[in-house]
C-alpha cells in the first residue's frame, strides 16, 4: 500500500462505518454489532496510521495529495486532501490510538445502554475519527477549519448523548455556542488571510498589515477549542457526556486541536511575537486558574476537566515561548495519561454509579487493577519523575525559561504544585478514603475496559521516552537534561503530592488554604460573567430587536395600510348621494376647466 492509500484508509474506514451506521438503521439499532464494527474500524484505523507513522519514521518524505474544492474565476482557491509529514503522522497515530482504546473501552462501558443508543454512540465516534483525522491531515487551514467545526459537531452530539437529561442538553448547547463564538475569530482569520494572500496556506506568514491580525484571530478560535480562560467555561460542563467521550474528545484529542493548529500554522504565529508573548501569559494564567479550581471540585470528572484546562494552558504557554516541540510533546503525553485518567474515572463511576469522589471511598480494595492504572495516570499528570508527564512538562518549562518568560514560568510552577496536590487529593479520597455505601458493591471493570486502560497506562508510564522520536520526526534536536528549572518543578510536584497526602491521606493536617477562595471559586465567577453577558446583553438586545420589528417596523407598514383604508373611508363622504351635488360637481369641473383656459391662455 502506498502512503497515500494508507492515509486515506485511516479516514475512509471510519467514514464508511459512519455512513453505514447512519443509513442502515437495523444495524445501528442492533447496538453491540454496531459497537464492534465501529471499534474494529477504529483499531484498523490505528493500525493504518501506525503503519503510516512507521513509514515516516523510516524516512518517507512529506506527501501532499489534494482535490480542488472551491473555485474563483476558474482558479482553485481551496482544496481538500491529506498532508502527511512528521507532525501529522505522529498526531494521527496518537489520535487513532486513543480513539481505538476509547472505543474498545466503550464496548464495556456502554453495554448497559439501550441498543439503538449504542448504535448512535458508535456512529458518532466513527464520525469523530474522520473529522479529527481530517483535521490532523489537513493540507491547508481551510480543511483544518472544516474538520475543526466537524469535531465541534461531534462534541455537541456526544455531550448531548443523554439528550433527555436537561443538564446534558444545556451542556451540549453551551459547548457549541462557546466554541462557535470563538470560531468566529478563526473564520474571520481565515477570511483575512485569504484576503491578503488569496489562499489558506499555513506555510507562509500573512503580509503586512495583517501579519499579527491573522494569527491573533486564529488564536481566538484556539482559545475556544482549547479551553483557555475566559472561554474555558464549556469544558467542565461538557462532562455531561459519557465518560469515554470526555476521555477522547474533551481530554486527549479534540481540545488539543487548538494546540495542533498553532503547531501547524506556526509560520503565521512566528511572525507575531507580541501574540506569542500573550499566549505564554494566557496559557500560564489558564494553567494556574484551572488548577486552583480543580482543587475544590468533588466531581471526579470536573477535577479532570479543570486539569485538562490547566494542562492545555501549559501547552499554549509552551507554544508561546516559541517551542513547538514543548507544546506538542506535552500534548502527546497528556493525551495518553489524561485519557487514561478519564477511563479510570469512568471505571470508578461505572463501579459506584456516581461522579463524586466521596462516593468512591475505598475502591482500592474493590477495583485494584483500575486503581493502579488510575494512579499511574495521576503520577504522570503530577509530573512524578520518569513518568510521561515529567518529561514533557519539563521540556515546556525549560523552553519558557529559555525564552525568558519568567512570569509565566512562575505561574506554571505554582500550577504544577497544585496539579500534584489535587491529583493526590482525588486518589486519596477516591481510592483510600473511608469506604462509602455506594462503593460497597463495586466490581472490577470488564476486560474490554481494562485492556485499553492498560495500553494507555503503558504509554502514560513510558511515553516520556518518545521525546527523542518526536523531535526526530520534526528534525529537531532533543536531549533530556535536568536543569534548575526542572529540579524546581520536580520538587514542587513532589511537594504537592506530599501536601496532598498529609491533608487527605493521613489527615494529619486539616487546615484550609485560603478559606474564602473556595466559596469564590465554587460560585463560578467566569461562568457568572458570561451568564451576565448573555442575560443582560444578548437576550435583551434580541428581545428588543424582535419587539421593534413586530411593533415598530411592522407597525409602520401597517400604518401605511391603515392610512389608505382611512383615506378610502374619508373620501367616501364626497359621494353624498344628493343628485344636485352630482350636477354641481359637473359644473364645478366646467368652471375649473374654464379657469384653466383663462390661466393657460394668459400663460
Amino acid at each position: 500500500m502506498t502512503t497515500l492509500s494508507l492515509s486515506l484508509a485511516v479516514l475512509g474506514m471510519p467514514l464508511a462505518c459512519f455512513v453505514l451506521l447512519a443509513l442502515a438503521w437495523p444495524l445501528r439499532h442492533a447496538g453491540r454489532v454496531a459497537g464492534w464494527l465501529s471499534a474494529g474500524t477504529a483499531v484498523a484505523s490505528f493500525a493504518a496510521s501506525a503503519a503510516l507513522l512507521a513509514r515516516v519514521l523510516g524516512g518517507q518524505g512529506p506527501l501532499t495529495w489534494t482535490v480542488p474544492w472551491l473555485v474563483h474565476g476558474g482558479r482553485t482557491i481551496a482544496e481538500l486532501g491529506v498532508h502527511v509529514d512528521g507532525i501529522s503522522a505522529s498526531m494521527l497515530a496518537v489520535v487513532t490510538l486513543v480513539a481505538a482504546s476509547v472505543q474498545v473501552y466503550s464496548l464495556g462501558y456502554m453495554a448497559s445502554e439501550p441498543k439503538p443508543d449504542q448504535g448512535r454512540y458508535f456512529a458518532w465516534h466513527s464520525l469523530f475519527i474522520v473529522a479529527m483525522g481530517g483535521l490532523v491531515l489537513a493540507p491547508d487551514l481551510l480543511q483544518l477549519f472544516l474538520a475543526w467545526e466537524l469535531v465541534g459537531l461531534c462534541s455537541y452530539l456526544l455531550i448531548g448523548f443523554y439528550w433527555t437529561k436537561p443538564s446534558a442538553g444545556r451542556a451540549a448547547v453551551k459547548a457549541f455556542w462557546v466554541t462557535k463564538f470563538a470560531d468566529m475569530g478563526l473564520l474571520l482569520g481565515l477570511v483575512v488571510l485569504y484576503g491578503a494572500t488569496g489562499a489558506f496556506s499555513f506555510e507562509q506568514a500573512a503580509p503586512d498589515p495583517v501579519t499579527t491580525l491573522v494569527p491573533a484571530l486564529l488564536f481566538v478560535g484556539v482559545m475556544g477549542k482549547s479551553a483557555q480562560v475566559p472561554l474555558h467555561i464549556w469544558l467542565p460542563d461538557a462532562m455531561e457526556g459519557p465518560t469515554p467521550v470526555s476521555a477522547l474528545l474533551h481530554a486527549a484529542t479534540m481540545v488539543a486541536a487548538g494546540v495542533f493548529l498553532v503547531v501547524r500554522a506556526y509560520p503565521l504565529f512566528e511572525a507575531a511575537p507580541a501574540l506569542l508573548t500573550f499566549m505564554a501569559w494566557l496559557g500560564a494564567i489558564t494553567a494556574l486558574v484551572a488548577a486552583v479550581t480543580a482543587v475544590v471540585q468533588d466531581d471526579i470528572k470536573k477535577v479532570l476537566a479543570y486539569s485538562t484546562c490547566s494542562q492545555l494552558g501549559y501547552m499554549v504557554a509552551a507554544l508561546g515561548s516559541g517551542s513547538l516541540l514543548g507544546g506538542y510533546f506535552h500534548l502527546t503525553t497528556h493525551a495518553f495519561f489524561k485519557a487514561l485518567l478519564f477511563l479510570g474515572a469512568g471505571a470508578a463511576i461505572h463501579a459506584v454509579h456516581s461522579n463524586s469522589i466521596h462516593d468512591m471511598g475505598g475502591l482500592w480494595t474493590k477495583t485494584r487493577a483500575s486503581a493502579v492504572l488510575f494512579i499511574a495516570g495521576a503520577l504522570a499528570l503530577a509530573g512524578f519523575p520518569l513518568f510521561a508527564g515529567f518529561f514533557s512538562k519539563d521540556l515546556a518549562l525549560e523552553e519558557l525559561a529559555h525564552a525568558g518568560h519568567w512570569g509565566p514560568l512562575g505561574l506554571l510552577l505554582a500550577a504544577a504544585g497544585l496539579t500534584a496536590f489535587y491529583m493526590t487529593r482525588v486518589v486519596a479520597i477516591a481510592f483510600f478514603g473511608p469506604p462509602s455505601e455506594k462503593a460497597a458493591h463495586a466490581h472490577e471493570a470488564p476486560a474490554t475496559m481494562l485492556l485499553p486502560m492498560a495500553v494507555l497506562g503503558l504509554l502514560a508510564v513510558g511515553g516520556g521516552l518518545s521525546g527523542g522520536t518526536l523531535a526526530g520526526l520534526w528534525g529537531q534536536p532533543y536531549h533530556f537534561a535536568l536543569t534548575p528549572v526542572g529540579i524546581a518543578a520536580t520538587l514542587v510536584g513532589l511537594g504537592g503530592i506530599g501536601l496532598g497526602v498529609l491533608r487527605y491521606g493521613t489527615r494529619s493536617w486539616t487546615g484550609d488554604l485560603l478559606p474564602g477562595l473556595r466559596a469564590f471559586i465554587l460560585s463560578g465567577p467566569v461562568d457568572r460573567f458570561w451568564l451576565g453577558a448573555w442575560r443582560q446583553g444578548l437576550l435583551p438586545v434580541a428581545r428588543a430587536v424582535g419587539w421593534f420589528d413586530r411593533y415598530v417596523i411592522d407597525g409602520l407598514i401597517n400604518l401605511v395600510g391603515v392610512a389608505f383604508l382611512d383615506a378610502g373611508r374619508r373620501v367616501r363622504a364626497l359621494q353624498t348621494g344628493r343628485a344636485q351635488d352630482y350636477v354641481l360637481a359637473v359644473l364645478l369641473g366646467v368652471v375649473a376647466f374654464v379657469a384653466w383656459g383663462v390661466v393657460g391662455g394668459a400663460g
Partner: protein
Amino acid sequence: MIPGIEALAVPLLVLAVALAVLVADLVVGEAGEAEAEHGPRRGVGALAAVGLLGALVATWWLPVGGEVLGGAFVLDPFALYMQRIMLLAGALGCLGSIDHVDRAFPGRQGEYFLLLLSSLLGMTVLAGARELVLLVVAFELMGIPLYALAALQKRQDAGVEGALKLYLTGAASSVVMLYGLSFLYGVTGTTSLPEIARGLAQGVDGGPLLALGLLLTLAGMGFKVGAVPFHMWVPDTYQGAPTPFVAFLSVGPKAAGFAAMVRLFVEGFGPLRDLWWPLILVLSVASMVLGSLMAIGQDHVKRLLAWSGISHIGLLLLAFGLASDQGLGLLLFYLAAYVPTNMGAFFVAQVVGRDGDDTLPAWQGLARRSPALGGVMLVFLLSLGGIPFAAGFWAKVLLFWAAWQAGMGAIVLLGASLAVLALFFYLRVARAMFIEGQGGQAPPVGLPTAAAILLCLLGVVGLGVWPRPFVDAAIAAAGALLGG
C-alpha cells in the same frame, strides 16, 4: 344609392338588426303571451346577439377607407376598430341580458333590446363621425336610450334613483357640451373636423372663444366616459340599473366617448394639444386616484366595479393624453382588453346577485358553491388588476411603457402604485369567493349567460396569452388615423 354608402355599413347592420328585433318582437310578443312560453321571448334577445355577432364577423369583409355624406362619416381603420369593439360589447351585452330580461322584465324584451340596439347605433355612428352635428346627434342617439334602460328596474328605489342621477348629470353635461360646440362652430365657421384641422394648421387663431368651446366640450366628454369630476352618477347608476345592462353601460359608452374624443381632439383640434392635453392628464390622475380610493371600502360589488372602472378610465385617459400613435394604439388595445374583462365581471355579478343582493357576503363561498364561476371571476379580477396571463396585464404594462416613453414617469409611478391598491379591493372579492363562507347550492346560470361569460373568458385569456395580433392591429389603426 348614395355613393360610398358602404362606409355606413356597420351602423346600417345594427339598424337592420334593430329592425329585425322589432319585427320579431311584434311577432313573438303576441305569441309569447298566448303560450306563456319563455323560449320565443328569449329568441328576441338571441336574435339581437346573433345578429350583432354576425355583423361583427361581417366587418372583416368591409372595404376600409370609404367616406359618405360629404366626408361627415368615414370608415377608416380607426372607426372600424372602434365599431368592432362596440359590436362586441353590444353582442355580449345582448347575450348576457337574455336570461335577466326574461326573468326581471317578462314581456318587455323588445323594449330592452331595441333601446340597447339604438344606443349601439349611436355609438357606431360616433366612431366614424367627423362632423360636429353628426357627432351631437350620434351622442344623443347613444345617450337617451341609456337613460331609459337605466330606469328599467322601475319597481326599485335604487333603479329609479340611479336613472335620475344619470339623467340629470347627463342632461347637464350634454348641454354643456352643446354649448361648447356652439362656440367651436361659431369661431371656425364650419362643423367639419377635417376643415377645422386644416384651418388650425394654417395658423387660424381661434382666440379665447375657441378655447372656451373646446374646454366645455371636453367637460361634456368627461361625463360620457365617467371621468372625475363628471363621474358621480357612475356608482349609483351601476347599483340601480339591471346588471347585464350595466355590463354594456360600463364599456360601450366609454368606447364611444373615447372614439369621439379622438375624432374631436386629435383629428380636429390636434394642433391645440397644448391646451387640452394637461387637462386630460389632470382628469386622468384624478380618476385614477379617486376611483381607487373610493373602491377600497366598498362592500357592494357593483359599486366596487364602478369605482374600479373610474380608475380604469384614468388609465385610458392617460393613454389618450399621450396622443401618439403608440399611445392611441394602446388606448385601443386597452379598450379591447377592458370590454371582455369588465363585462365578464358584471355578468358573474349578475348571476351571483340574482336575488338582489350584490354585497360581498353574497359572494362568500362562491368558489366552493361553483368552482367554475369562482375561477372565472378570479380571472376577470386579475385581468382588472393587471396580472398575467390575463388581457389586463398587457393593457396595463404596455400603457405604462408608452407613457414612460412619452416622459410621464411620475404618472407611471402613480399608476403602478395605485394598481397595487386596486389589487387590494379586487382581492377582497377573491377573498370572499375563495377564503370565506361555506359550500352550498351553486347559483343557476342560464345558457346565454354562460355563453356570454365564456366568450368574455376566451377574450380575456386569449388576449392575455397571445396579445400580439390585437396590439398590432390597434397600433395600426391608430397609426392610420394619425398618419392620414
